[in-house]
């Protein structure tokens, strides 16, 4: 298994889902066209069977209109052909782009990894609603085709409408994706209807609320029924904001919950993973780099280059597990060189350990004496003791 298999699933699955959706719509159109042609043909057939010269013009008219219909069907089929072809081409382009991952040319590979990081960042931006940054980066890095910006832009519109307390757009979206939402047992439409009910009661339009309930609260499962009963209670109060349980129903946090639920369902039906690629990869990377030294006071050697010591990542990596190390791997605290059989470890009287090469360097800089870079004490070479690491 290589990293591409793990990271790029949604890169290919999302356009595939688009293709699937388009295919279904195309098929519906085809069925419609076919049945309409069939209808006209049957009509003409009937006319022809009982025809006489007097109905000639009628027959000819229907024939002409059928020809007209066929022309339109032809035009539509060319459109649909192009649409379906375009989507398949997008899939193909993405597959081709991903091939660079295993390219034999180092420069191509480097560019692929650079682009991959940019794509991961764009995905992170989109999930956090930084739409302008995402578009800007996609443009600069010429990556628009490889990202799923369009899915998120649709999401943006609906989220904005939910934020302004409108449910219609989201409901339209639910209807569009009815079958898929049903497959994942989604509660979204029901929650939307419930919110509409609450809003009607809040505006004191109680009769309308009851009509609404009668129309939409049908075929409920037991959990939903309990929810409905809770919200029905609102009708009993003259002034809604009175009791405590009503606070929860009337609060704005329900709208925030709705937005979150919508985003969740949107990701599910588009085959977009719930956690961003950035977070997943960072988790693994930070954990693999995390050593106790990054967090300790006594032995802490702040290495400039270590990402976990970087103040930003230090906080983020705190709850993650440490990297597992079966054999000791030592680094010289002064030069960053590896300490091994070619650069043996030596201990100064103050307990600090450096590689032999560093001691040589330190002695050349300080008249044959060794000045510990960390504690600033000076020692003679004779005071140094050898250390054996197994």
């Amino acid at each position, binding site marked *: 298994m290589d990293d591409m298999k793990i990271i790029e699933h949604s890169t290919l699955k999302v356009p595939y889902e688009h293709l699937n959706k388009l295919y279904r719509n*195309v098929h519906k159109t085809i069925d419609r066209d076919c049945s309409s042609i069939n209808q006209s043909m049957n009509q003409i057939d009937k006319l022809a069977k009982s025809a006489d010269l007097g109905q000639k013009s009628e027959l000819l008219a229907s024939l002409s209109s059928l020809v007209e219909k066929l022309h339109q069907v032809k035009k539509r089929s060319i459109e649909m052909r192009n649409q379906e072809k375009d989507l398949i081409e997008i899939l193909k382009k993405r597959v081709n782009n991903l091939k660079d991952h295993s390219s034999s040319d180092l420069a191509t590979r480097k560019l692929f990894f650079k682009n991959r990081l940019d794509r991961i960042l764009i995905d992170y931006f989109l999930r956090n609603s930084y739409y302008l940054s995402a578009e800007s980066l996609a443009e600069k890095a010429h990556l628009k085709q490889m990202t799923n910006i369009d899915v998120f832009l649709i999401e943006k519109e609906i989220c904005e409408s939910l934020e302004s307390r409108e449910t219609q757009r989201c409901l339209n979206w639910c209807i569009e994706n009815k079958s898929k939402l049903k497959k994942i047992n989604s509660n979204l439409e029901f929650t939307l209807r419930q919110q509409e009910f609450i809003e009607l009661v809040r505006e004191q339009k109680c009769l309308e609320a009851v009509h609404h309930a009668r129309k939409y609260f049908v075929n409920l499962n037991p959990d939903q029924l309990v929810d409905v009963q809770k919200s029905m209670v609102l009708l009993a109060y003259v002034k809604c904001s009175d009791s405590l349980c009503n606070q929860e129903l009337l609060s704005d946090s329900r709208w925030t919950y709705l937005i979150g639920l919508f985003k969740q369902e949107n990701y599910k039906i588009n085959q977009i993973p719930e956690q961003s690629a950035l977070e997943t990869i960072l988790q693994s990377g930070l954990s693999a780099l995390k050593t106790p030294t990054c967090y300790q006071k006594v032995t802490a050697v702040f290495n400039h280059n270590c990402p976990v010591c970087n103040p930003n990542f230090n906080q983020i990596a705190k709850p993650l597990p440490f990297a*597992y190390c079966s054999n000791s791997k030592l*680094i010289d605290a002064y030069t960053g060189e590896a300490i091994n059989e070619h650069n043996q470890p030596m201990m100064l009287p103050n307990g600090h350990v450096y590689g032999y090469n560093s001691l040589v360097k330190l002695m050349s800089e300080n008249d044959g004496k060794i000045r510990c870079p960390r504690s600033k004490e000076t020692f003679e070479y004779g005071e140094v003791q050898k250390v054996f690491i197994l």
Partner: protein
Amino acid sequence: MDSLVAVEKEIDKALDLFENFYDGVDQNLNKAIDHLVSIINDLTKIESEQTFKLSADDSISMCKEQVRELIKHYSDKHKDLHANISKIGKAIDKNFVADYGNMSHVNLIDTVEKKMHLNEAICEHLLRSGHLEVCDTLVEEAGLVKKIDEDKKRPFVQMNYILNKLKEKDVSPALEWCQINCKELKAISSNLEFKLHRLRFIQLIQQGPKAQLEVLKYSRNFTQFANDCHKEIQRLMGSLIYLNSGLENSPYSCYLGAELWEEIEEEFTKNACKLMDLPVECPLDVCINTGCRALPALVNIVQVMQQTQCGHILSKDELPIEIDVGQNYRFHSVFSCPILRQQTTDSNPPMRLICGHVISKDALTKLNNSGKNRIKCPYCPMEQAPGEAKQMLF
């Protein structure tokens, strides 16, 4: 790679079938339209009642058959295409891992503060890679309080400018920079300036005999490096012999490679970062590279552990397997006690016994269990008192 090949195969198949399908539809529609048009023309000409009835009946029933075939083909064949489309989806699911193999366990960025830290790290990355406007947009959209002011940006702007020029094989901005920072570069014993001069020298030689004088004049630039790099300078001056015949077929052809230019870009970045007191490689890059390397092994483990009920690997104190991050990405010493097989920490530091062998403090305590106040090193016959062991700091 073969995962991509498998998916591509299905895609190509689908493309072909779609093409054939729509070609067929087009053909059928054209035929039907032509047929109908000819029927209309025929019928229009007919004046007699009887002929009309016969013709009408005949041609319309023929036409009916044709149209029925057409719509059957249109609908059924399109339905058949669905199998190919779902094959693509199945190929993707089979060859790729969905949902990152359940690696995502904790919500890594769960507080506003952590998000701010991550956004700042991303801003640094964007600055380093030269996407300054994107960085500005992000600062605004993410509401980062610390606005990245012009002073902080300037060194990155300059660095990116010089790097872009190096990509175009123009060394002059880089040389200027070296001359400005000459003292600091000497302090870190960098030979960047010499390497840049060398590249320019080779460039001039490639211009052939007409640049002879210029080449000689340029070689004066090497005098300042006479002490440190005299061997290399000797070698370079020898290349003048091939001024006429060109360097491609000479022993100097190695100087023409593109790797030298890539190397100089890296060298420049390293030196610039050292001078600006920044990490050589952007921390975000290091994390992402390491993460991508670590993911396959970790996903494997997660899959295996899902059978047992051990809990997710990211909820533990230590990863269950070792990830080789490569020597470049080893930034701290890790000492693993050979006896207890644990990493040493502040509370359990490494201790050096008199004989020079090193074990962890916990191991030392365990060896002293008999309470005799004399312990023997596990690796050699040397005996000592536990208090004589010295704490080490790597």
